[in-house]
């Protein structure tokens, strides 16, 4: 018999908890797995009934996602020189030739620029504002904080028309800057409130100690407050990125070309030459990756938690 402990769960408790987590993971991950698999199917496999779980993988979806193709007559196809690359081959097998790259790469890059750009801006502004609200005597502090929060009380899309008109006259429509500013505007209230909570938890005494140790307030902020707020900054950044990355309504309304992000683009894949589910699956899979990678990179900070340990009471 092992000794009873308050903090160590028993073996049985671990098993129960583990099984629940696994079950939950299976339920939520299943659609995701299906989409990822669809990306590696051929178009006939993707719509076969009953659905195929075992199939021979193909890169056709990814090739279709990144290219535009046109169908040519069998005689002309036979007259062409042999295909130079594996993806030429895949396309030829469907009686088509590649005529150029698709817009997916560009749109994806737009998403990266706008998503990470607005996240960075939200975090920088949010951290500075949260620090000021947490530490300084700001006149009308409570009213200002309420005002900042109130910008989130109505669904952002409710102001779509004024923003659309405003952006048109300011020349911000369909620009990277315009979308970064817009997403930052939506995220900043969340960032200020979340980060203020985290910074409030960090005792002032640490900064005071740093001030006495010969640092300026800003240096103390950088060396003492920021590292301890890492957990808050990481989780806030993930929230901001998820919103900016997935946002659909404003992206449809305000972008059409140069600055169009991936979400409004992905549905257009379906329309090109029949229902190309493998290409959609491929597009969605790639679209999911950045947020996932970002979260995994910040995992260390999320798990570390806040340290109250070095406090002597």
């Amino acid at each position, binding site marked *: 018999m092992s000794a009873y402990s308050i903090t160590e769960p028993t073996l049985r408790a671990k098993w129960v908890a583990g099984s629940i987590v696994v079950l939950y993971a299976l339920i939520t991950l299943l659609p995701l797995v299906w989409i990822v698999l669809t990306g590696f199917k051929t178009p006939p496999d993707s719509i076969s009934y009953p659905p195929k779980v075992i199939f021979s993988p193909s890169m056709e979806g990814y090739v279709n996602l990144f290219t535009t193709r046109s169908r040519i007559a069998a005689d002309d196809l036979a007259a062409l020189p042999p295909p130079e690359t594996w993806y030429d081959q895949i396309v030829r097998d469907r009686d088509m030739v590649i005529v150029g790259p698709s817009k997916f790469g560009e749109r994806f890059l737009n998403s990266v620029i706008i998503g990470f750009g607005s996240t960075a801006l939200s975090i920088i502004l949010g951290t500075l504002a949260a620090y000021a609200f947490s530490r300084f005597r700001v006149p009308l502090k409570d009213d200002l904080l309420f005002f900042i929060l109130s910008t989130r009380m109505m669904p952002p899309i409710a102001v779509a028309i004024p923003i659309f008109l405003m952006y048109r006259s300011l020349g911000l429509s369909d620009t990277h800057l315009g979308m970064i500013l817009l997403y930052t505007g939506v995220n900043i209230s969340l960032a200020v409130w979340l980060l203020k909570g985290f910074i409030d938890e960090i005792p002032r005494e640490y900064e*005071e*100690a740093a001030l006495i140790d*010969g640092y300026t307030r800003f240096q103390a902020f950088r060396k003492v407050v920021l590292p301890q707020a890492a957990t808050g900054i990481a989780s806030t950044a993930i929230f901001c990125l998820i919103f900016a990355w997935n946002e659909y309504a404003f992206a449809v309304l305000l972008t059409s070309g140069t600055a169009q992000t991936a979400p409004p683009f992905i549905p257009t894949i379906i329309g090109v030459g029949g229902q190309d589910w493998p290409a959609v699956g491929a597009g969605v899979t790639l679209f999911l990756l950045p947020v996932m990678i970002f979260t995994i990179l910040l995992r260390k900070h999320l798990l570390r938690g806040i340290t109250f340990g*070095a*406090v002597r009471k």
Partner: protein
Amino acid sequence: MAEVRLSNLSKSFGATKALSDVTMTIPDGAFVVLLGPTGAGKTTTLRLIAGLDRPDAGDVQIAGASVLGDTPAQRDVAMVFQQYSLYPHMSVRDNLAFPLRSPVLNLPEAEIDRQINAVAGVLRISHKLDNKATQLSGGEMQRVSIGRALVRNPRIYLMDEPLSSLDAKLRAELRIELKRIHAEMGATFLYVTHDQIEAMTMATHVGVLDAGRLVQFGTPRDIYDNPHNIYVATRLGQPRINILPATAFGQAPQTAAHIGLRPEHIAVGDGQAATIRRVERLGDQTRLHLVMGSHDLITLTDAHTSHSAGETVHIRPANPLWFDAAGQRIA
């Protein structure tokens, strides 16, 4: 190393008067101990000198110049905090290096290393240098935070109950160590403690605070022998001074309302009859708990006394202190 002069210093937090009109000069090279009950304003005094709070009125001068306009960094003081001590996201080594790496000092890493190792040796934390600050016991944290003050060579050391969570042995060792540092470097210390032994053995001067006022300032001997009022008399002395109505032993000065008798100032042999309620043998001394009429007293006697509980002894005051009705000393 510098003289610190506090002039008519006052500080309130809302309705709480944390410090009222405190004037005190800490001579260059002095070791000043601040005594006072909880809430007396000891920490507030240190914070005002360090520049973490602004006084409502009064002036703080270091080395003859007012520092009210200076940032904490410019004042060049080191402080051991009462509560939050270490940067939790750093190792012990980095905690100790932090003051040395400050932009104002700009020391080479080798020199920083040398100083850290020296201080870590003195405080017996060399084996913990690579621990995270959170992976230490309370006493180890306290030693690291003392170390963070000692690695530098500031104009004044401010220490807020730095030895409070150490065991008796370590406390005794560090007391001697701090005293040695004080003597060797001729540094100026302002040191808060509740511990009488620390006050008596380390201090060159003692300041007694009560409810935000400086009640008395002087050498430890002077504070002990010549307390200005009952309050100061009770701060020092273990066991505490006995306070009885002035006439408990017969005649008293005209305006006296209380007589104060330190345990060692009670002569046993003749005088008033008192019953021994309890005999406390501490090894090096023995305490007698007495009841005289309706009054309780404690006195000291030699270690191997043959007295036992229930006996009656005769006592009289030797060296009494007299206080008036307001508690002020009159003789």
